């Protein structure tokens, strides 16, 4: 029994070591001019909120925590980031059509207002990503004004 336990433990450790060699590509592309923060230049505190609560999965610049380097956590995060970017990628905001921009702004507000975003699992690991009611309100005020401004362009 004891020997059996020792072997299974060794095998598990072996697997753990081996999977470390399978690393997903990092989501770290150089910043672009079409980024929402460049295009819309929001007030400082809102830019911080967006970067802090949204940009890890919805841009080309993820801030990777230490544990993200460890497989299989890295795989799990990689999938989230890919799905997030597929849904919305703030780094490509400038390339969108006018009405798609307006929709994106509208959805920023809706998602945070409903509490659908940031994801609860993300908030568990990033306490500071949790938005206060005032932060949500100012995000919504801003996105609505920006959307209306875009319409007049």
């Amino acid at each position: 029994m004891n020997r059996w336990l020792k072997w299974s433990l060794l095998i598990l450790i072996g697997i753990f070591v081996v999977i470390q060699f399978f690393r997903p590509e990092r989501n770290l592309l150089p910043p672009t001019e079409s980024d929402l923060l460049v295009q819309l230049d929001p007030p400082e505190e809102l830019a911080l909120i967006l970067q802090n609560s949204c940009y890890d999965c919805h841009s080309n610049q993820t801030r990777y925590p230490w544990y993200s380097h460890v497989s299989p956590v890295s795989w799990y995060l990689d999938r989230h980031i890919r799905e997030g970017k597929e849904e919305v990628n703030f780094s490509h905001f400038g390339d969108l059509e006018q009405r798609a921009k307006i929709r994106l702004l509208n959805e920023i507000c809706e998602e945070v207002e409903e509490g659908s975003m940031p994801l609860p699992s993300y908030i568990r690991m990033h306490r500071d990503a949790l938005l206060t009611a005032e932060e949500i309100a100012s995000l919504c005020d801003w996105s609505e004004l920006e959307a209306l401004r875009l319409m007049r362009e």
Partner: protein
Amino acid sequence: MKNKVILLLLVAGGFILLQSLILKKRADLNPPEEVQKILESSCYDCHTSAGQNDDAKKAISFDEWDGYRLTKKISILDEITEVIEKDKMPPGKYLEFKPDRKLEPEQKETLLKWAEETSKALMEGN
């Protein structure tokens, strides 16, 4: 007997009134007839406030169109374009029961054109 007839007439009258109210409410969006027909047959089963599916109603209830903010309207029109282009709507599950509600290529064209023109008009009107 006479009372019964009056009651029946009242009920019928109320029913007609209700229908016209509902119709009037839906007319808020006021799309061309051709578009209206497509929306009615392929979208309204779920996307009006009388629908059974909460997610669908929340995404858009066409009869509540007038109450939506301008940015929300444009957002919805953009979403309509997306779900048609990507063949996400009407959803497969719905089409299993009502295969005739599937959008034909010409119907898709009509809706896409309408969504784009309407959102342009909304932006310009602002």
